[in-house]
């Protein structure tokens, strides 16, 4: 086959796999470094530890973006294997917290979670997990001292919230009826990928006439930004 006939998407998908492998290794090494003995913040190496945690966060951020791009590509090309399964939300919360904890520690932010052990939802675990981790990373970025992840039953579905005590979302984000559909905003330098992804994921979850959705608000329990994911 001549080179110019090759579909660029083939390279994209296989390179993303490759990059994800490397990032996974980097993340594991950095986690190892953070888990070294004497892991309670030690005044001598605080600086080094903070930078390691920061590096871990950046690695995870790139990883999240790749995961989101790949999932969006597959959804767009109609071959994402959407597969809602009955899963306990507490498991998802624990995994998401474990992902965000090193960054929270390095920034001295208290990361709390409220989730009943017996809350189950029909969710595509990987997609919802991606949304929650992204929201946690965002919140940690803007929080002053506290971030709260909560999940609760709501009607026959559930409500997942990520709140912080930071300055809250800027008005231009809140003003949009559906922030996610704005797409890319070059003015703010924010790609909008995370929100767009969250919106797509929410809307893939359906039960009868009901469809999932996302909401951005300010205030909430901690007075800062509050991201909600409602799933039927």
């Amino acid at each position, binding site marked *: 086959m001549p080179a110019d006939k090759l579909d660029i998407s083939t390279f994209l998908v296989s390179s993303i796999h490759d990059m994800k492998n490397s990032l996974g290794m980097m*993340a594991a090494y950095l986690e190892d470094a953070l888990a070294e003995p004497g892991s309670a913040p030690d005044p001598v190496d605080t600086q080094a530890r903070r930078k390691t945690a920061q590096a871990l966060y950046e690695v995870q951020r790139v990883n999240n973006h790749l*995961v989101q791009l790949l999932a969006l590509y597959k959804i767009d090309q109609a071959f994402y294997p959407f597969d809602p399964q009955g899963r306990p939300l507490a498991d998802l919360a624990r*995994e998401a917290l474990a992902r965000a904890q090193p960054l929270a520690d390095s920034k001295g932010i208290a990361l709390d979670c409220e989730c009943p052990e017996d809350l189950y939802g029909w969710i595509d675990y990987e997609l919802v997990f991606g949304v929650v981790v992204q929201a946690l990373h965002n919140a940690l970025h803007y929080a002053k001292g506290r971030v709260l992840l909560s999940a609760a039953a709501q009607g026959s579905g559930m409500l997942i919230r990520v709140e912080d005590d930071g300055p809250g979302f800027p008005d231009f984000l809140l003003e949009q009826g559906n922030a996610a559909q704005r797409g890319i905003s070059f003015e703010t330098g924010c790609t909008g990928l995370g929100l767009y992804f969250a919106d797509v994921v929410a809307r893939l979850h359906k039960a009868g006439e009901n469809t999932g959705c996302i909401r951005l608000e300010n205030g909430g329990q901690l007075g800062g930004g509050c991201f909600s994911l409602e799933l039927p």
Partner: protein
Amino acid sequence: MKIRNLPPPDFSRTSFLIVEDFEGMRAILRDILARAGARHIAQANNADSAISMLERTRYDVILCDLHLGHGKNGQDILEEARHRGLLAPHAVWLMVSAEKAAEMVTGTIESRPDDYLIKPITETLLFMRLSQQIAKKHVLAPIEIAMREHEYLKALRLTDSQMEGIQPNTPHAWDLKRLKAELAMASGEHGPARAIYEEALSLRDLPWARLGLAKIHYNEGRLDDARRELKEITDGNRAYLEAHDWLARTLDKLGDHEGAQSVLQRALTTSPRAPLRQLHLGEVAHRRGELGAAALAFQSSIELARNTPLKTTQAYLALSQIHLAQDNPDAALKTLSALSIDMYNNPAARLLAQAMQIPVRLKTGEHGIAKDLAQQLAEELKAKAQHLPPDAVFNLVVPLLALGDKATADALLASVIGNHHDHPEYLERAQAVYTQAGLEDEGRELLNRAARAATDIMNRGVKLSREGKLDEAIQLTREARAQMPSNARLLLNHAFLLIAWMERHGRETALNKEARGCIELARKLKPGEKRASELLTRLELLGSDFEFSV
């Protein structure tokens, strides 16, 4: 409610096998497991060494990467390990993948791993999923053992008693319900399976439940309903591979070969490394006369299935036939020699690899070689006729008649008819062969005799058993089975007699095994046969060798 932190697990007594081509990743997994006290950690960096390690040791946990570079992938290893019984009943198989892939949804109970882990693998993720799955498999092990013994009714009973202790609508309850539905399907009990699938669909549009419903429609002959449900799953999404395979099968049966071909091609763009799907595509394309596409598909099927339990003689024979039709006898011979090499321990395959050279040699004008071959093989062909696939027989008898070897051709065709005496399509094809050779009347008589012989044996068996002469009846059907090993009706009759005998005289392990073998084979030959599941129930009521308390 604040979320609890889970205590770290203790893996000091758990044995692990890590299958991963990337040393860095193996080290990471090893380190994480070691932090939970794991001491028995074996590693393999490719599929072949994984298989040979699984042959020697029954591991508690297998962590296997889905993508292992070239050659077999993690899914192939899992299926081979299950197929060959290389896993302990309590073994946990976690498949590791860079992303959520199409292979991960739907699939059957035999093809699904216990769970998938998406990279990056962290300690929390690994410990949590492992602890859950180890606990779950511990509880499910008795069900797994019953399934391996093909005792589906017992497995169903065990599943029901598991479900009693569980809160409805929790994930575990739905795991068990899905398992129960699959077991019910395996034992031919469509009712309970259907109820579960419909309940699931009332909650959510779940692809696996819709697929289950479609399979019930298909098995009960409602092909239009099956097609409707399957299209609902596949329309707009090509990730649900198994639904594509079933849709192709359904369309094929409905006579829409073109539709079947395009559905298979679509599934293959998502996941090309599927030997059975390639085989099916080859068959459909071949039937439509698209020889080029068919040859490509058969070739891929052969290459993908080589060194796996999925290899079939069909792919080689069909490919060689296509090469011949395309005036490429060299390639046809090459394919046949590949067949005898790849399947050297299958006597029927070796015999066919030689015999199918006869039409090739005839086409190239090498009459002498063809005649010698036919002479050499005549006795073996007659002796093993009942083990040869009907399609191959039909391709072979025409050249045999052309060479004047009517005796062998007669024996081969009579055997096909005996094995499939209630299959009018084969009767028609066989008659057409004779008619074409100018032997219309002679052929008709011979074929009728073969079909009558089969029916006579059935009738004599029934008569003997009515007269209470069970031993004589069993003797009769057992001998007939050796001559007609693929006759589903005969197999079920034989199983029926064996079961009746045991119901009267008590259970005997050897007879039990013989009866079960007959029923399983009959179900493979004629899926959806009601009598098979009735007999299976009666057989299970006789008890088993390995009773265990619940």
